[in-house]
């Protein structure tokens, strides 16, 4: 998935923006590692919170049937676009695109739509999660996991 998406982003010329793909619960599935990385997780939590809230507002306006919603917070050179979409096997997703010092931000509106379409058509994400990753974790292991982060 990662490589396919990476290639597609380059192919449509969206590689001059930071592109992030996440599930609606906030887990980040893909990140193009472009641009500023300060407080990446915090910024993402805020953006994902805003998109979910915005999407929810759209639903209370009973316009959810219109699938083409995009959240946009931008001026003529910097900004964020975010769009709800899904994978071809129906995992609900958000695509987030952030850009800076851009002469033509509108091009990214087209590009984010293309990425959404690409995901809908080409990307499968469903996993058959049946095995437990860990069994019998001990209290000692938990202590050790926390030990390293104490001040």
């Amino acid at each position, binding site marked *: 998935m990662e490589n396919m998406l990476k290639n597609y982003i380059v192919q449509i010329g969206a590689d001059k923006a930071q592109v992030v793909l996440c599930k609606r619960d*906030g887990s980040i599935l893909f990140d193009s590692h472009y641009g500023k990385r300060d407080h990446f997780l915090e910024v993402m939590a805020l953006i994902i919170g805003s998109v979910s809230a915005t999407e929810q507002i759209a639903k209370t306006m009973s316009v959810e049937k219109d699938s083409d919603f995009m959240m946009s917070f931008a001026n003529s050179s910097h900004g964020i676009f975010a769009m709800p979409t899904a994978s071809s096997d129906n995992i609900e997703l958000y695509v987030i695109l952030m850009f800076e010092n851009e002469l033509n931000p509108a091009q990214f509106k087209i590009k984010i739509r293309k990425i959404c379409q690409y995901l809908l058509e080409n990307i499968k994400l469903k996993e058959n999660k049946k095995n437990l990753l860990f069994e019998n974790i001990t209290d000692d292991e938990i202590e050790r996991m926390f030990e390293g982060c*104490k001040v």
Partner: protein
Amino acid sequence: MSFVNYNKKEINCKIVYYGPGLGGKTTNIQYIFQKTAGDRRGKIVSLDSDNERTLFFDFLPLDLGEIRGFKTRFHLYTVPGQVFYEASRKLILRGVDGIIFVADSQMEKMESNIESFEGMLSNLKEQGYDPSTVPLIMQWNKRDLPNAVSIEELNQKLNRFSSPTQEAVAVRGDGVFESLKSLSKIVLMNLRTNLSSN
């Protein structure tokens, strides 16, 4: 979210502090922030009002140590407590891997504890969870206050699933890490993956 990345050997989990307004949720994560080394935690993102009431959520990313070769990152969220923020609470519960229910032990808060707990159950159901199977720790907070009810009463009125409990005085940090550690253990042992996929 419980996102396990085999290539990077990384686990991401979403932990939500849930409970009535002013129960001590934000205090819990502020204490964790203070006691965690700078390179292991992010900033606390707080969307709050002038009087420090949580408006949408607080968020703190926490990089713990390794467990069996996997780097572990917890994404800690708190929900806003006030009754009218139900819509926000629903959103924050999306993809939750474990919950610390922060109950306010004060006698006059029993009603709001119960209301909040019931709300949590119906919000979880709405998100497609069976609430009885979601990893949950009941934190009995504000044990320092003279008007705190007995542990028996809290258990009887709130502990629907006989979940593990932890007494706390979050302002002093008592019980804060203990709650998170107990929850971590349950959350990690609940992680499911498809081992054959990688």
